[in-house]
């Protein structure tokens, strides 16, 4: 079933069992933004193993372990158990394409998460859904949220496709200001070089928002990025800013970007 389509293997730490068909083709397994390759030897009850396909700082830090695997040869099928050690990350399995592949997912397998081959429209709908669903959530600086858990992996994996929508939605103030502010926090905090330029531009644009919460979050995001190229935009924002408290905080961001002391000295 659904060979060639990614299937949700597990959410968070909850393991789920999958019965997969005979194949010696490599499978792709996504844990958040991390791609792993699973390889198996035909039907024999040999262990599947996981091989990291691309360097990833989360794994290098030793915090993320390879997904557990359990394989057992069983009358033409292999039972595979895989789950994420990373709280908040879903595991996706991308079944190998080609003839002779069967793929049986348990009925309770959901479809939440970021599928690797979503179309542009599906991706935008997904992110929009995430941002709208977070409207009732309470956000606190430094703490994960549904926005951080869902948005950061999307940007890491689909940054080119999602940039335009995020400009439209966040800079265009289409959503709830608290949710937009939360998204801006994380867009500033994330370390992802390929999207760095447009994330900075987006944060600069959001300095012009009508919402004070959004303007503050944009300033925080730019402070986190610490990119001196934002100096003209922050300067202009200070000139425009009507709230004295926020203006003072933006002046500190400016000082940091210009390499001057500005924040409290410890």
């Amino acid at each position, binding site marked *: 079933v659904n060979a060639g389509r990614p299937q949700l293997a597990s959410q968070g730490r909850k393991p789920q069992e999958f019965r997969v068909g005979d194949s010696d083709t490599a499978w792709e397994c996504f844990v958040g933004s991390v791609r792993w390759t699973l390889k198996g030897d035909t039907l024999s009850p040999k262990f599947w193993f996981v091989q990291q396909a691309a360097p990833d*700082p*989360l794994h290098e*830090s030793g*915090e*993320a372990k390879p997904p557990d695997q359990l394989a057992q040869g069983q009358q033409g099928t292999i039972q595979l158990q895989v789950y994420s050690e*990373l709280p908040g990350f879903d595991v996706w399995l991308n079944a190998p394409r080609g003839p002779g592949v069967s793929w049986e997912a348990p009925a309770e397998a959901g479809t939440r998460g970021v599928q690797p081959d979503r179309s542009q429209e599906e991706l935008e709908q997904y992110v929009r859904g995430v941002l709208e669903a977070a409207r009732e959530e*309470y*956000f*606190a*600086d*430094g*703490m*994960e949220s549904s926005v*951080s858990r869902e948005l950061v992996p999307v940007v890491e994996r689909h940054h080119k496709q999602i940039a335009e929508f995020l400009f439209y939605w966040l800079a265009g103030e289409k959503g709830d200001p*608290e949710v937009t*502010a939360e998204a801006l*926090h*994380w867009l*500033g*905090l994330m*370390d992802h070089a390929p999207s760095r330029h447009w994330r900075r531009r987006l944060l600069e644009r959001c300095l012009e928002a009508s919402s*004070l*919460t959004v303007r*503050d*979050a944009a300033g*925080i995001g730019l*402070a*986190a990025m*610490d990119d001196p190229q934002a100096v003209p935009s922050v300067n202009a924002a200070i000139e425009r800013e*009507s*709230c*004295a*408290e*926020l203006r003072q*905080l933006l002046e*500190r*961001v400016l000082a*940091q970007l210009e390499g001057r002391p500005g*924040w*409290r000295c*410890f």
Partner: protein
Amino acid sequence: VALLLRKLDRRSRWMAEAIATWLPHGDAPAPALHDFIDEQGKVSVWAVAEDQSNLPRVVAAIAATRESADVFDFVLFDGQAVSTAGARLEAAPGNSPDRVADQEWHRNLANVSAQRAARLVCAAFVNGERDRTSPKQIVELLLEAVNRRWLKLDDLKAGVKEKLQRTAAEKA
């Protein structure tokens, strides 16, 4: 206790000018209450010396409980405000991985009623000093805390630990 520190979940909810048009004098915006009272109804604060010499360690201790090296906003207010509000302080360990800071400076408020909590929040809002530590400073503070052995790197959440490791590698 000279000064008390309470972290703010989101500073923009405290920006007076955004709400000054309707807020009665001496009052505080309702969301500020949420910043003071946790899910169990407890009010957790940190004692800070008059000369603020322990402030870096207190900030690092609180930042060490978080999931990202994000901005850290806080309000510092006169410890006298607690008794004025009708509550009292009691020593109680916090949930920071810095055990020394936890034991020495973390406090819970006892005898907290809704009105007393509101009075305390109003006092902190009107007379307290709000300040912000940037994400970059938080990383520096946590690195220093690890170097001074106030904290262990392994005590930190994955995202924070990763950020510290990357920053340390860049510096090296």
